[in-house]
């Protein structure tokens, strides 16, 4: 009795056809042999018969046509989590590197910009507030602009309120005092002759 699992010579030929290994001329002439092979014949018949629920194919909806460039599924070679991890590592490395470099950089603040007061002439240096006893401030009378500056700076009138007289050619002389870090400038307005006091303590304020 033949073992059904052992292919017969014609079955081997059909298998070659199935695997596409037969020459083209032989492959064309094999149709009748396919019909003679029970397994292949039944399989072909099964493939060609109607599927169950075929009538339900009418339920299928015709989708809208997309005639633009065909959308090809994009499968990135590297998953997204890899790039997220790489970005986090890069941030960490850059931060670590900057932490190493920062102490090497001179952290001293830049020197303050020297304001040009070349049209002023400082006549009385500001003394330390704690160096002198508290004495009421005494305004210094302005001197004419063309007056020669005194050879010696005037001593501070008050440790808390020191006055600095500035000699200025034009406009009229001004008086400057410094009190607890606040600078007061007294002057006379050229038009009205009114006395004006300028206080500079970070915020400018104009008072009479």
């Amino acid at each position, binding site marked *: 009795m033949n073992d059904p699992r052992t292919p017969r010579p014609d079955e081997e030929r059909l298998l070659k056809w199935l695997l596409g290994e037969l020459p083209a001329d032989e492959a064309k002439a094999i149709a009748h042999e396919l019909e003679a092979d029970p397994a292949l014949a039944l399989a072909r018949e099964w493939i060609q018969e109607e599927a169950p*629920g075929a009538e339900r194919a*009418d339920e299928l909806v015709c989708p809208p046509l997309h005639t633009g460039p065909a959308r090809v599924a994009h499968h990135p070679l590297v998953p997204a989590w890899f790039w997220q991890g790489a970005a986090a590592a890069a941030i960490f490395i850059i931060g670590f590197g900057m932490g190493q470099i920062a102490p090497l950089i001179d952290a001293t603040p830049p020197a303050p910009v020297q304001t040009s007061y070349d049209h002023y002439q400082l006549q009385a240096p500001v003394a330390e507030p704690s160096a002198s006893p508290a004495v009421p401030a005494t305004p210094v009378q302005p001197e004419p602009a063309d007056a020669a500056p005194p050879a010696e700076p005037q001593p501070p009138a008050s440790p808390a309120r020191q006055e600095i007289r500035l000699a200025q050619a034009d406009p009229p002389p001004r008086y400057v005092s410094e009190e607890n870090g606040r600078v007061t400038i007294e002057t006379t307005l050229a038009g009205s002759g009114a006395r004006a006091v300028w206080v500079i303590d970070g915020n400018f304020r104009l008072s009479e």
Partner: protein
Amino acid sequence: MTVEDGALAAAAAAGDERAFATLVERYRGYIHAIAWRIVLDEEEALDIAQETLIKLSRSIGQWQGRGSFRAWLGAIASRTALDQRRRPGRRERPTDPQSFPEPGAGRMVAMAATVRSPVELLVAEERREQVTAAMGRLTPQQRAIFQLRLGEEMLPGEIAERLGIPARQVRSQLSRAIARLREELAEEK
């Protein structure tokens, strides 16, 4: 007058909605049948057929007019069905023949065409059930390959290209499928 598939596909690729609708009308039953033979489940076959139509609407411009449009479409449907089976949560397995639907009169059209008597009809029905059971013991991939080879007469290299698997795998699956089928049908004789 019936317009050829190639002309309809070219018109659809140029944006002709009516040509595309005609193609869908012509092939939706075929697509559903292909899907069913791979997954052996009516509902799933419907989902796959719908997804295949959506893919077709997006890729109709790729049809280059070479070979058979029907075979090209059958390959899209087969690949869609296999992709569906490979999705997470699904398990690649031969379908349980016990879960097959009861045979209906509509399914006997092809096999009953040459028989006439009730006895012959019964024999044909029984034979069909045996074949369905034997096909059900193959894997979905084997059924897809078998279908494209026997139904569309595509060569293994072409099947491999369309399904995105190595040609060697196609040949080995074909060999195993036909051996299994012969064994199953011989046992049930």
